């Protein structure tokens, strides 16, 4: 299973973290520090897997962002690499050519998408279309909720007048 998902910028700034195994806050910072030191220093032509504390970390770089996933020893690394790519494709489709800034300003949306893709450390939905549909449904609900609230505030405002 996947133990955690990390997004780190090239400067070592954390952009997104999701922990599927229990780690305390202290351990988390330690893990992030160790891994960013390990991954950011690797050259471009080396393989995308790193052995770390008896686990594997699969990472892939997209522009200035490193997507890392930590998996068990006997998992299929190439598959995880593709899961990362899968996630990036979904993000891309959702944001329309995603960039780091999208993730910084809308990181909660990135979380929602990740929740649709992975659950409890396993891939739950291999179809991009389904994920997109679900996220869109949630968003539309949010939109209607917003409209409602704005209309209500309008009514209240008018009534107050």
């Amino acid at each position: 299973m996947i133990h955690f998902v990390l997004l780190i910028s090239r400067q070592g700034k954390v952009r997104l973290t999701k922990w599927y195994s229990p780690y305390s806050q202290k351990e988390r910072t330690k893990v992030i520090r160790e891994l960013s030191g390990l991954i950011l220093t690797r050259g471009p032509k080396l393989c995308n897997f790193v052995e770390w504390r008896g686990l594997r970390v699969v990472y892939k770089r997209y522009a200035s962002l490193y997507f890392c996933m930590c998996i068990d020893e006997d998992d299929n690394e190439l598959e995880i690499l593709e899961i990362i790519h899968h996630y990036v494709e979904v993000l891309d489709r959702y944001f329309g050519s995603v960039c780091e800034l999208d993730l910084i300003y809308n990181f909660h949306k990135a979380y929602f998408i990740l929740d649709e893709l992975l659950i409890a450390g396993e891939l739950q939905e291999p179809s991009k279309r389904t994920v997109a549909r679900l996220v869109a449904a949630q968003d539309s609900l949010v939109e209607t909720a917003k409209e409602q609230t704005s209309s209500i505030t309008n009514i209240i405002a008018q009534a107050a007048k």
Partner: protein
Amino acid sequence: MKEYIIRLVYVEMLGHDASFGYIHAVKMIHDDSLLVKRTGYLAVTLFLNEDHDLIILIVNTIQKDLKSDNYLVVCAALNAVCKLINEETIPAVLPQIVELLAHPKEAVRKKAIMALHRFYQKSSSSVSHLVSNFRKRLCDNDPGVMGATLCPLFDLITNDVNSYKDLVISFVSILKQVAERRLPKAYDYHQMPAPFIQIKLLKILALLGSSDKQASENMYTVVGDIFRKCDSSSNIGNAVLYECICCVSSIYPNHKLLESAADAISRFLKSDSHNLKYMGIDALGRLIKISPEIAEQHQLAVIDCLEDPDDTLKRKTFELLYKMTKSTNVEVIVDRMIDYMNSINDNHYKTEIASRCVELAEQFAPSNQWFIQTMNKVFEHAGDLVNIKVAHNLMRLIAEGFGEDDDTADSQLRSSAVESYLHILGEPKLPSVFLQVICWVLGEYGTADGKYSASYITGKLCDVAEAYSNDETVKAYAVTALMKIYAFEIAAGRKVDMLPECHSLMEEFLASHSTDLQQRAYELQAVIGLDAHAVESILPSDASCEDIEVDKALSFLNDYIQESIEKGAQPYIPESERTGMLNISNFRNQDHHEASSHGLRFEAYELPKQTVQARIPPASLASTELVPVPEAMYPRESYQTTTVPSVSSDAASTELKLRLDGVQKRWGRQTHFPSTSTSNSTSLKTVNGITQVDGSNTANSRTRETYDSRKQVEISPEKQKLAASLFGGPSKTEKKSATGHKSSKPSSHMVKSHAPKSSMEVASEKTSVQQPPDLLDFGEPTVKSTAPSLDPFKDLEGLLEPTTQVSSAVNHSSTAAVTKSPDIMGLYTETTAGAHHKDSDILSGLSKPPMTNMVGGTTTMQVAQSSKGPNLKDSLEKDALVRQIGVTPSSQNPNLFKDILG
């Protein structure tokens, strides 16, 4: 509010503490608006983990939300369930989640399945009655739900393969449909039909088909199809291919599939991508177990990977080499590993590679000389990371040498070890474990061949003790080594004059805070004061291989007990019976429990040698009747020593205790058998000589040549050499090691079966001949033990020759039963149980050397006791008490043995 919470999440993500805001996130999930609720759930899943205090506030909301009409609310709640529900709260939400399995929305069904999977991981018992639901969901209309169901099924099958064999057909048909693109287009990924589902299915099939021919036969066609259809230009295609290889290597082997797997591997290895090389190496490691010959065509690729700048790839390659190590290539591989070990500073991996080096060296060592040198290197570079057992193994190897045949080889081995250690001692900063080995070897064999004078060795030892003055274990080893050397000197009739630095060292140790060091120093003083004869019986030269018999029935106490009973004492009632009685002794029992539980908490004296030491003082004390036993054991109850019942019960309780740790420690041969087997194979090898190795080399070079001509690549001669040495004649060596194994097996059997018998002999001997309370007789235990220790050798020889198997037949029957395992254990008499005990003790890797010391040590303690005033005696008693308490937990898992024996 929502914005604030999102910011809080961001703050937490950056590593700052945001715990003050958790409660607001919890409040948010109570909100009616979905927008707020969803953010609240997101924040809660990110903030809290399953054992946080606030979880209890969330459970109610989750229950409500799971019943919601809006499926998005349900989804959000299920997401939180997966992350936050712990073992205790599972029952609260379980029925609702089971209902949701039939929800009309596939997204909800999918998440419900995943939630159940999570519950299964957390506590498999809570959902065990729901397994049939997983099977049902496998036939779900929606491929997403079906794919999700594969996750829990994979876990279930991992735990229990046999009850899912009936699903093989359905899995195969699903895989077939997937591979034939029957699934909706939406599941395609880079032109591959639902690759993630394929991978999951292949993993499951690999589990189901392992060593099951019938199940595997069903899979052959579909796996072969996938092999053909996979597009190896895309990454995901390779992922599926890799999974196919894993599957093929795990199921019952099929020639055709193996061939295509080998093809795929060679494609991986030849590709430029490091990722694929990595996967190729990994796959090769899997396949090599089934068909070792495929490694040979890839040898150059493997060596390229070994020299690659990429660390990960290198490690993976070492893993592969580790898997393919034979006795022909072990030297090259271990050398490489040690080189690599020196170049890294990641402790985790260093430990791993060091333990692998040790394992390989123990298993395949071509000669003991080489073994010792390799171990020296490993200790030097990764000393503190190496398991202490390894050090004990090394000491034992040096002590026992080649075993039966010739003594000159042994002494050569020892003197070379001594020499190398004296050389290494010159280097600064050696790891503690290694120093312990060095001290022990120098003490035992430093002066054995007469090359070095005692004063030279002692000088070195004093240097060690001074240089590492903050490491007490090393100091203790050094003092004992000093004692041994002086004892040998005295025994040889030479006059001993202590070096001045040694004197000052002793002064320091006599006042040491560590009771262990202090005692060793006193022992040393006492030994030096004795005459040659006495010293020889305390510390016989080169006696570390002798066995020590321990009278665990405490028969020497019989007189004492008899006497007490005659005086009106109650006979001993076992503790288990006593607990049932409702009288005053109940109270005392509690006291005992307290005392013993008290003992469990101490962890200071963990060194195995002390078990024996602590065990013997009461024995010797009792036999000489200098001090009543219970006082030494339990000063808290010393006021009761005159009242008779407590004496008997105390004695009994010590007996109970002693049974735990005072089990006979005939520890040598058994765990040693791997090294004897290596020595066997060594001798074989020396007979065969170098010619065999040469032969494999030439055979190899031929294949290499063909390879060269085909590929027409310039390859450096070193590489070729390396390749040749790595991939040399696998089949021959395997046979050899197998025979080595066989020959070593009976010997271990023999020893096992012999143990109870000899202990009985000794016990009876001891009961008949009561130990006279003579002080000069302190050599008794060691002397006695030498007699039975001769037997196993004889028996072993007898067994090795298949003609004389009269005794072994009897023994074998008993051993077979003994080895059979815990179920029958209880039925066995105490002696057999004792044998078990000893087994586990041996397995825990106790060291022989300290034990001899201890016998010597305790006896001298007795001497010191009688010769010096009562003050010293008191302090020694106290010391013994501390040891007794401290020692009880050190015997492996005392409670377990209590159950078995009691």
